[in-house]
């Protein structure tokens, strides 16, 4: 009798252990691949935090498909080859169901073959240069037609700019973006003499002669603006030098594509008031969703001063779209989710809706903001409608005829509408 009780107890124990193990195996794994060390940690650490917050929120709501979500965080240390290694590790060893990650275009290019080979799913949250659409990547940041082109329109129409300085850091995003902008300007009839293009190395810190040159270029009697694709650390000394040489936003405004609230929190913004940035979201956007998101973010980070920014909103949209797609597909299988996600609409933080398009880009509003003395942006202009993201720019030779469409019958990332072939030709 006693023996039986013991056996029964053992059985119960075994069952509960196996049940617990089964439960553990059944969590849905969400890979988070953002640099927590090295140069890019400055931007990417926040995105890791926001992903942890979103996963925690979802678990509070009861998880997904009745299972708990589990975040698997890796640190690719701002080292591009390590991104590919960590992606492989996430997909083969940790067996994650989805990955949210990358910041720089070069890190995305480095993991792209891994995701395509192992059929993974990556949500990429940063504005980028376009000219790409992978079956395995959802681009939740802006394509050039959702940031650069409307910003140029604003400068030309509202500020009556006639002379252009394209200043960028010397790497793939500014080079491609400037190529598109230049082609666009020339198509509008701007002559070569009215365009100045300048590239500087990463973390360039001595801006004296370039700012003097900008000043000279800008005193030719026509309204001049700087379109800045400067990345990261180069911005602070650039803006400081502008202020030192008395170039105010009223004289020569700077329109930046990579300066957000987070970057401004490291700058004394008083001399910068009036300089511009183009994004799809600002922390100062007045909407209920945004107020709720900011409150949650402050509660999660236990820091009232932490700012929110555009790539965070992209992750918010991307995560919610993925959750809906999984619910719709009834599984986390990558193929099923990819099929289900097209056409899904989730609220963005500006009070509108973001729809996942056939080309794996989103619809987004475009906002132009002016820097304020408190480090926030004041929205001064926005597009009337949502702008659908365009993977292949209409302003570049060779990409004009290409489209991306990941639904049947096309199912191709670079389909040529003229030759009706896949493969970019």
């Amino acid at each position: 009798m006693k023996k039986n009780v013991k056996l029964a107890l053992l059985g119960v124990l075994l069952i509960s252990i196996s049940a617990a193990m089964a439960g553990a195996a059944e969590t849905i794994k969400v890979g988070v691949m953002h640099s927590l060390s090295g140069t890019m940690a400055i931007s990417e650490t926040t995105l890791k935090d926001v992903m942890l917050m979103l996963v925690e929120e979802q678990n509070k709501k009861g998880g997904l498909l009745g299972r708990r979500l589990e975040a698997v965080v890796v640190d690719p240390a701002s080292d591009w080859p390590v991104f590919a290694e960590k992606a492989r590790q996430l997909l083969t060893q940790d067996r994650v169901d989805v990955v949210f990650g990358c910041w720089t275009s070069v890190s995305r290019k480095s993991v792209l073959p891994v995701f395509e080979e192992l059929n993974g799913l990556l949500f990429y949250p940063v504005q980028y240069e376009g000219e790409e659409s992978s079956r395995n990547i959802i681009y939740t940041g802006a394509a050039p037609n959702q940031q650069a082109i409307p910003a140029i329109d604003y400068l030309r129409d509202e500020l009556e700019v006639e002379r252009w300085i394209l200043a960028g850091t010397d790497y793939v995003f500014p080079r491609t973006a400037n190529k598109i902008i230049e082609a666009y300007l020339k198509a509008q009839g701007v002559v070569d003499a009215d365009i100045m293009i300048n590239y500087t190395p990463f973390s360039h810190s001595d801006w004296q002669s370039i700012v003097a040159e900008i000043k000279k270029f800008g005193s030719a009697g026509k309204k001049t603006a700087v379109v800045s694709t400067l990345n990261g650390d180069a911005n602070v000394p650039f803006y400081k030098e502008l202020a030192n040489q008395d170039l105010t936003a009223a004289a020569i405004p700077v329109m930046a594509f990579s300066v957000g609230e987070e970057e401004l929190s490291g700058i004394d913004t008083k001399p910068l008031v009036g300089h511009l940035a183009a994004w799809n979201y600002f922390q100062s956007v007045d909407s209920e969703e945004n107020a709720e998101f900011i409150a949650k973010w402050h509660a999660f980070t236990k820091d009232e001063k932490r700012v929110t920014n555009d790539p965070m909103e992209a992750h918010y949209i991307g995560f919610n779209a993925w959750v809906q797609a999984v619910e719709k597909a009834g599984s986390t299988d990558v193929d099923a989710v990819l099929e289900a996600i097209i056409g899904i609409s989730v609220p963005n933080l500006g009070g509108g809706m973001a729809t996942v398009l056939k080309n794996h880009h989103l619809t987004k509003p475009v906002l132009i903001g002016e820097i304020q003395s408190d480090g926030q942006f004041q929205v001064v202009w926005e597009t009337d409608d949502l702008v659908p993201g365009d993977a292949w720019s209409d302003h570049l030779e060779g990409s004009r005829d290409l489209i991306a469409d990941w639904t049947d019958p096309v199912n191709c990332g670079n389909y040529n509408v003229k030759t009706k072939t896949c493969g970019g030709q």
Partner: protein
Amino acid sequence: MRTIRSLTLLGVVLAIAPAGVSPAADAGRTWLEDGIRASLSGSKVKDRDLAIAALSGDASEPSTRLLSALLDGALYCDKDSGAVFIQENGVFLDLDGKDAGVAAARLKKSAVDNKQRKEIAAILNRRRLSDPDPEKRRTASAALMEIGAPELEREALTALIQAEKDPATAKNLRTALGIRLAKDADGDTETLLRAVEWLSAGGQPPAGLALELLAASPRREVASAAADALYWGKVGRDWTAIAETTFFGLSLGSILVLAAIGLAITFGVMGVINMAHGELIMIGAYVAWGMQRLLPGNSAAALFLSVPAAFLIAGAIGMVMERGIIRFLYSRPLETLLATFGVSLILQQAVRSIFSPLNRAVENPAFMSGMWQIGRSFNVTRGRFYILVFSAGVFFLIYAALRWTRLGLEVRAVSQNRAIARALGVRDARVDALTFGMGSGVAGLAGVALSQITNVGPNLGQAYIVDSFMVVVFGGVGNLWGAMIGGLILGIANKALEPFSGAMLSRIFILVFIILFIQKRPRGLFPQQGRAAES
């Protein structure tokens, strides 16, 4: 309760207009009528257009006050009632200039955009041109020559010139009139010749553009006079460009020197390859930031105090490094390199974990921002100039310390011949620690200076470590003068190349040049002489 009462009071005040402030405000006047108030408190920036247009036609003092508050972002509106307040020194004043006693939480800033800001600035500038204060008139007239400044009508300018008694203001106004005449290109030959005279006396970039217009004039006399003026203007500009490039180069060089002096001591004199040198610079910059946090609102005092503080803190960390790690590795350069590289990574990540990976904002005190204008168009930015002076000061202090103090003598003795120095009673271990501490402290000083011009973040050091080594190797290892001259030469060469080749290529050229130079003269510009150099 009190706020509510004062708000109703204010509403009444607003409704009847501040009769006490403006004598022109009689009963019928509605200078802040509901439409304008609604336009000021509207949620969209474009709403402000109406108020600006209305206020521009009203040159009364309250209207000017309202416009300048709007321009400076000091105009706030009550979210519910739409009442308007002006913020001054953290206090919200109503339109009579009395403390309204409202809480900031209820208020919303009335924002304007670039275009509106420009418009307001033009309106205010026009009003200032007839201000009784000659100083204000002078700045207002100078502003007419700035990039993108709005133009005044000819009649208005002529009237202003006739009324003007201050010669500097009158000269500016005449230049502005010259620009106007050149653009309209009408008037007899005599008037246009006078315009050429005014424009060449002015010399600002818009005046130069106007001269170019006149040089293309069909009237031969006018065209040749303008061409002459343009020629002399161009000569002046060429000299200015040379002076400017030299200053930019000296300024960049002074920063390189500042970053490299510490290394010239630890690497040059002691022979330690300290890869964590950049992180010591970074620590100096964080000290400047920390000091500013301790003394909020007084950034100048914070900056001065952070100079000794950064020297002591970075020096102390350097001494700990020397006592804890480096002294076990003397005469094993490869291991020193690896160990200090490890220390540099540890320090970087420590800063990331303690202060967050984000950059920190360090304010520039007022005396460090802006610039001086020398002559017509040569500008010297103040911050850069003071850093140049600071760099020279630090150099001569360190030089004097090594040359004329007891410690300096011992340092040189140990670096030349350790065994003999020991035999003569020099405590070499103590000397090593102090020398390394001094080198590290100077790196901290460089950090304070850098906090004024670049990012204060965990990556600050990495940006300067390569340049520092470059300067020391180029100048000659073991020689402070070498670091100084080497840094300045590299700075000037970099800036002289930049206009032709761009920032990216000029850097590459400099690196290639240094590689070739080291091939030819492996010991740098100023090689160490004598027996000590052989070892």
